[in-house]
């Protein structure tokens, strides 16, 4: 299954890159841009059905793909 793991800093953790991008958007005239956050997406193929792929992706996120001290993650299958 095509699987995506989206990783973002947790809401309580200051995202300085997001802040910088928000400032740049404002200076370009996009004054409506708010709460800009920067994250990353890891795409991978996992054999098996959707439930199995999601379970495996969660294990991968917990062990390596996200650092749950500072980041949260979301798994998208299919």
């Amino acid at each position: 299954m095509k699987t995506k793991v989206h990783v973002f800093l947790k809401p309580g953790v200051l995202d300085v890159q997001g802040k910088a991008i928000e400032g740049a958007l404002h200076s370009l005239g996009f004054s409506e841009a708010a709460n800009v956050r920067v994250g990353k997406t890891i795409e991978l193929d996992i054999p098996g059905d959707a439930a199995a792929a999601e379970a495996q992706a969660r294990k991968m996120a917990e062990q390596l793909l996200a650092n749950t001290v500072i980041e949260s993650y979301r798994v998208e299958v299919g």
Partner: protein
Amino acid sequence: MKAAVVVFPGSNCDRDCKVAIERSTGAPVDMVWHQQTELPQGLDLIVLPGGFSYGDYLRCGAMAAHSPVMAEVKKAADRGVAVVGICNGFQILCEAHMLPGALLRNASLRYVCKPVELEVSNAQTRFTAGFQGRRQVKMTVGNGEGNFFADEAALDRLEGEGQVVFRYLENPNGSARNIAGIVNARGNVLGMMPHPDRAFEEELGSADGALLFQSALRSA
């Protein structure tokens, strides 16, 4: 007395650490490649050096924390061997859950490289005994992701248990509560962003790093 420096692909302070430890303590220093599954016998000190292990891919220290050698470093730490992670080494110790917290991008978004004055917040650790009660030391930082983060409860615990070892007098990277270095609960694993390996002779602007290496080995 015997020390080892772990070399990850992308480490760049490994040789600095070897020279710093040899010159400041006289102890022989083995270089250990990250894929080794056995450490040299009889180690008293293991250093995880600064650099950009695995190109800082995914997160600083994330890949290195899962290197084969780290399982052995954890076992050695559990036996009480002193472990010091400097800069990228500190990030690796956090990613390996050998120390609490994490290192975020500097609040300024800029890489900082300069000498910094540090408060010795706990002079009783096996790493700081050699400062002999001095409350202020100087070392150099060089980091882009040295902004120490932990949740409030974890920060309170670190402070309450005396696990905060060094604080910045002028915070260069936004670290929570000005924290520059911490130890684990047992007191034998130290992580710090400033480089003792860049401050081991007066010619380098400070010899305070030499005292840290001497303390770490003397306490073994």
